[in-house]
């Protein structure tokens, strides 16, 4: 509609409220910072993705198709480091969280806008340090940096990779800090805690983990660096140190970190499921409290990564029991989402396809987690492809699909444009098929005993590996398609109105794209969240 298109060009909003590179690089507008992050993490996803492509091509042959074992070690290490620290952990918090938290809460910006910009710069410095490690020969310790390989024996770029992770951790901490203060102190009048959208509960729980967990991995990496530089010996048995102490300190953060990666996605799914069922979410307080419960319990289960490390069997028993416990709040969410769908007026646009995909694939990944939480079965499954399948079902089948669903859902709000939903649904279907073809064989081959992080494997596993690699090529196509039509839509997509989905939430009561100050007047909230059909 011509008038709407003219309106988009003449109305002042956050995208045209200032031109030029300085207005972007020196912005303190949370919406622009979200876009800066979106560009950065997409780039780092490509870096990690290229490593994945090379790994899958290499694994077509039992003796390894392309690389030396040393190079293969570098590939899976860099895949893990970039995907975990420079894509997954920032993804939803830094992109969707930054954009939406102030809008959903009815505020003009986050509590500390300049700190927000600083977070992005810190993130970029960390990313550059990690890129330096990649370009100058790579790192081969795995993203887990286990000692004594990382401290003593590795002759790769451990220091710059660890420094990159260390620095980017502060970006995570400061973003979490910003969100917690904003949610506590800047809710609009009438926005009580239990009227907040569930995405905000998810972001709050995630932020608690970011704030309390990340400093521990930071100091751990400092100790690794000191040991590598000065041979000081905190983790070195020759001086009385213990390499398992590293594992405890590392996993104390890195287990909660996986919940940093999944909780925001669960928050997105809550928003999607309720909007595309046109029905108030079922069990609001259960979902809200389950987010907090996951954050709390997540700090108590780190030892399930160390069942075969030599830690005490009694510690193993306790960690196993607690790991079963942490599954319960996640299951509660799945039940509530399903109950929301029941008797809802369900529509199947692309965001909903991603949400439904999340529910199915996350459930599968979560159930396989129980195999790994059980001491007896984990003894056989630890360090096999079963683990690799498990966490990819959660992180890719779960978290990444939630991220894509959220990007599609809020794209009209962020850009003021609609994307072509036909192509989006096709891409979602391709991603779903490619994903399952890539990772389901990994469960099977892991169960049969194929170890992870090995450059070669016994020939009887070749068929499943080839299936997995074929799936990866389909998945890559699926990921490429949204890049094309989303960028296309920014220029040629139909102009979106304030609320193309008919969704409830304060962010939908602003124009698309919103003005820099978000709201002309701070809104007053008078109804419960998700007041559909009222």
């Amino acid at each position, binding site marked *: 509609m011509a008038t709407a298109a003219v309106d988009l060009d003449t109305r002042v909003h956050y995208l045209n409220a200032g031109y030029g590179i300085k207005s972007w690089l020196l912005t303190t507008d949370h919406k622009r910072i979200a876009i800066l992050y979106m560009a950065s993490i997409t780039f780092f996803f490509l870096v990690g993705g290229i490593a994945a492509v090379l790994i899958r091509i290499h694994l077509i042959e039992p003796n390894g198709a392309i690389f030396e074992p040393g190079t293969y070690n570098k590939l899976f290490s860099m895949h893990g480091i970039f995907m975990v620290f420079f894509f997954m952990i920032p993804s939803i918090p830094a992109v969707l969280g930054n954009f939406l938290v*102030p809008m959903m809460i009815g*505020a*003009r*910006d*986050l*509590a*500390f*806008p300049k700190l927000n910009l600083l977070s992005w710069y810190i993130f970029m410095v960390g990313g550059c340090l990690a890129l330096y490690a990649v370009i100058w020969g790579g790192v081969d310790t795995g993203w887990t940096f286990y000692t004594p390989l990382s401290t003593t024996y590795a002759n790769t770029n451990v220091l710059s990779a660890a420094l990159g992770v260390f620095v980017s951790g502060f970006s995570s*901490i400061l973003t979490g*800090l*910003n969100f*917690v*203060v*904003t949610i*506590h*102190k*800047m809710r609009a009048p009438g926005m009580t805690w239990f009227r907040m959208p569930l995405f905000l509960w998810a972001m709050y729980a995630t932020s608690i983990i970011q*704030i*309390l*967990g*990340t*400093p*521990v991995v*930071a*100091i*751990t990496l*400092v*100790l690794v660096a*000191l040991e590598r*530089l*000065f*041979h*000081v*010996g*905190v983790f070195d048995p*020759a*001086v*009385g*140190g*213990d390499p398992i*102490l590293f594992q405890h*300190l590392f996993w104390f953060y890195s287990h909660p970190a996986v919940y940093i990666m999944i909780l925001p996605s669960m928050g997105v799914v809550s928003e999607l499921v309720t909007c595309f069922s046109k029905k108030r979410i079922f069990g609001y307080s259960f979902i809200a409290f389950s987010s907090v419960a996951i954050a709390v319990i997540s700090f108590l289960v780190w030892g399930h990564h160390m069942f075969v490390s030599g830690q005490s069997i009694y510690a193993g028993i306790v960690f196993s029991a607690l790991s079963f416990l942490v599954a319960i709040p996640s299951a509660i969410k799945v039940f509530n989402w399903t109950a929301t769908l029941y008797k809802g007026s369900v529509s199947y646009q692309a965001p909903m396809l991603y949400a439904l995909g999340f529910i199915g694939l996350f459930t599968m990944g979560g159930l396989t987690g129980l195999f790994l939480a059980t001491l007896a079965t984990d003894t056989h499954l630890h360090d096999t492809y079963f683990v690799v399948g498990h966490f990819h079902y959660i992180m890719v089948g779960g978290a990444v699909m939630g991220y894509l669903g959220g990007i599609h859902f809020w794209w009209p709000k962020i850009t003021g444009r609609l994307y072509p939903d036909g192509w989006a649904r096709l891409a979602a279907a391709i991603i779903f098929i490619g994903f399952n073809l890539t990772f389901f064989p990994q469960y099977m081959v892991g169960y049969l005993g194929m170890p992870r992080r090995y450059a070669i494997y016994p020939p009887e596993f070749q068929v499943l590996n080839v299936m997995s690699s074929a799936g990866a090529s389909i998945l890559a196509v699926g990921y490429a398609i949204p890049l094309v039509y989303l960028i296309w839509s920014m220029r040629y997509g139909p102009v979106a109105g304030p609320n193309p989905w008919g969704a409830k939430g304060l962010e939908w009561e602003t124009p698309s794209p919103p003005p820099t*100050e978000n709201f002309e007047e*701070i809104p007053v909230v008078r109804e419960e969240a998700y007041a559909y059909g009222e």
Partner: protein
Amino acid sequence: MADSHAGSALAHQFEDLEQQHDAADLGMWIFLATEVMFFGGLFAGYTIYRNLYEPGFAAGSHMLNVTIGAINTAVLICSSLTMALAVRAAQIGKRSSLLTCLILTIMLGLAFILIKLTLEWRHDYLEGFVPGLNFTFAGPNAKSVELFFCFYFTMTGVHALHMVVGVGVLGVLLAQAWKGRFGPERYNAVETAGLYWHFVDIVWIFLFPLLYLIGGRY
């Protein structure tokens, strides 16, 4: 209400000064929680190894100078007093007291760092107590004594780094206070810096007994 001319104390994202103050306060407390977790990793490692290697850790502790450590403790406690007075001065808008107290706090902080560098660490280096550089110990439990010193230097080093940052921040505040920036409507920065300073002080209160006073020398 918000001033509309340049230099207004109220940032645009807040509705009123009270909200802005509460947000700054909560923000700094959360940051201090992250610092607790940061130092916590070191304290956890220290606790585990001290438990395993009591004699070595006691021997290492005896090699530290309690007198200098105690003087440094007193220096920091005094600096916390002057910092608290500085915060009060900023809140009531007494520029001269604020400047005096900030200068005193900075000087005490610098004194702590100087004492550490010149009297303690330099001495440790000359005596061969520095793991990774020149550690030599010709007694029993040499390996655990070396491990003790690993923790000693890492923990006091990380603490000293936080002091340096603190002194830097106070320097910036001093320059701003000199230009008359702070008053009853704008003192958040001094208050939050005060919180940070007190925290760094408290970390030292934990470090001093755990590093200097173990092993029952009296």
